[in-house]
């Protein structure tokens, strides 16, 4: 390897984008094919800067669209090497068909998705619409709540993606602007330690291996399609094992422990919110402050969004009396994704908490500590009364009259 070594401090101050870029650099990516879009642009710009200054010996391909970026990643990945890219929102929407193709073809790719609202109206700020758009795409999807986690998750993504028992592409999510553009302390690994942790790329069915010509990307009709999609789903579900192993190895290396389902104050709590992204950390502050009011609240987040840790989410929420599932994405005519998935997880268990769905923070609308305290206070009231305080789905923090939908039936205990 003839690339320059970067000396990192023990504690760096990086925003989420730089965390991504450094993880790419340390992971010795072979090809980065990318297209700029706010707020993920800096992930690629930083990487290009590293490349221009000799810190990268792989290739950088600046394509003419996001669809082309992901297409190039799939081609390069199938050729037999490590690939990565970054995008958000409209770019993710443009490349969505290629996401399905990548996972169906079982090509390891790491996508840093800096979560941003989907148009229309056009919005460059952070929400989870793009994250939700990837739900059924067959990718493993992990969420970071701050720049340290963005670095950690992105680094681990390579290891998980390329594992011989997985061979599935991985999305490393973080909130647009709130994480991507907020500089915080990040404790990085040394270059060599990080590179060794990720390990060398393992070639499987590589196009450039002329000893074994292989046909990638076939057509399967009604007599074969189902078996292949079944196999793909089985692999995605089984990846949970490798994710847990990787988290365990990472903890040994760094002391930082990650779980499929993260929670705060769950042991003592009767009420909880379920959310993704930076809201988790804001909720931690609200929860601490609410102890003075005698309210015991918790926040739960599926750090691994796909494969969805259904049993672990259900387990975590068994003793909670009232739950608000907070979805940071326009719900499109029904209850939000987290509400659906958490309710579905709880249904086949004895627990029957009050369940509500809060739509919040769209287009980067701030979710404040004060706002979360109000949400927890309301949950506390609901838990004590034994019924919802209003309709099932409510929009929080939008100017205008109350916007809520769906009545609960009967008295829910």
């Amino acid at each position: 390897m003839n690339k320059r070594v970067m000396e990192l401090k023990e504690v760096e101050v990086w925003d989420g984008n730089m965390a991504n870029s450094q993880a790419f650099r340390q992971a010795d990516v072979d090809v980065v094919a990318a297209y700029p879009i706010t707020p993920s642009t800096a992930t690629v710009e930083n990487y290009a800067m590293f490349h221009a200054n000799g810190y990268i010996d792989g290739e950088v391909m600046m394509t003419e669209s996001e669809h082309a970026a992901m297409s190039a990643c799939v081609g390069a990945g199938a050729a037999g090497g490590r690939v990565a890219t970054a995008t958000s929102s409209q770019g993710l929407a443009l490349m969505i068909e290629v996401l399905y193709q990548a996972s169906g073809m079982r090509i390891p790719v790491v996508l840093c998705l800096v979560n941003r609202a989907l148009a229309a109206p056009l919005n460059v700020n952070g929400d989870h619409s793009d994250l939700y758009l990837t739900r059924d795409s067959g990718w493993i999807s992990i969420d970071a709540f701050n720049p340290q986690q963005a670095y950690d998750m992105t680094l681990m993504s390579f290891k998980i993606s390329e594992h011989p028992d997985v061979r599935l592409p991985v999305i490393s999510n973080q909130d647009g602007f709130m994480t991507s553009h907020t500089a915080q302390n990040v404790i990085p690994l040394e270059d060599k330690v990080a590179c060794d942790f990720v390990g060398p790329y393992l070639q499987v069915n590589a196009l450039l291996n002329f000893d074994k010509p292989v046909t990638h990307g076939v057509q399967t009709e009604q007599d074969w399609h189902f078996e292949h999609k079944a196999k793909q789903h089985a692999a995605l579900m089984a990846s949970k094992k490798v994710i847990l192993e990787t988290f365990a190895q990472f903890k040994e290396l760094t002391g930082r422990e990650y779980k499929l389902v993260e929670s705060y104050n769950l042991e003592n709590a009767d009420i909880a919110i379920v959310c993704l992204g930076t809201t988790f950390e804001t909720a931690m502050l609200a929860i601490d402050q609410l102890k003075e009011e005698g309210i015991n609240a918790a926040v739960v987040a599926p750090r691994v969004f796909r494969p969805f840790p259904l049993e672990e989410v259900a387990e975590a929420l068994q003793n909670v009396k009232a739950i608000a599932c907070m979805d940071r994405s326009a719900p499109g005519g029904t209850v939000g994704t987290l509400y659906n998935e958490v309710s579905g997880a709880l249904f086949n268990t004895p627990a029957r908490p009050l369940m509500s769905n809060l739509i919040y923070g769209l287009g980067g609308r701030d979710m404040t500590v004060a706002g979360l305290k109000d949400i927890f206070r309301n949950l506390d009231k609901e838990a004590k009364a034994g019924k919802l305080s209003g309709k099932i789905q409510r929009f929080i923090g939008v100017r205008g009259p109350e916007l809520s939908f769906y009545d609960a039936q009967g008295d829910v205990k």
Partner: protein
Amino acid sequence: MNKPISEMGWDELAPGAVLYTFDGDINYNIADIQPEDRMYSETSSKGMSVGDWRVIKPVWNSETCIDCQNCWIFCPDTSIIARNKEMKGVDYEHCKGCGLCVSVCPTNPKSLLMFNEYETVENALANWPEKKKKGE
């Protein structure tokens, strides 16, 4: 691969629905080895037959043939077999009966003609037309 692919369940199929052309690894340049010497796997289409697409088939008359190889190059189905610059015959497993080989054959009479699928090669050769005179 011991089990035929048609008997495999979802758990036994290769991930990503990939297909291998050959069994095992190959350690030669494919372009240096003729197809009959390659170890095709059951997932190469070569082992399949599309001969049942035909209702008429080309019959080759080696007596009149001049080995020009027009039929070889213009066959869409790799069904004209040429070796050592000589026409060897028609691959009836892969021939779809399109008739292009006949249309490009330059000899007089033609060295490839279409006959009913059920006609035997012996009968066809026995009934080969005479050389056409100019203007016919």
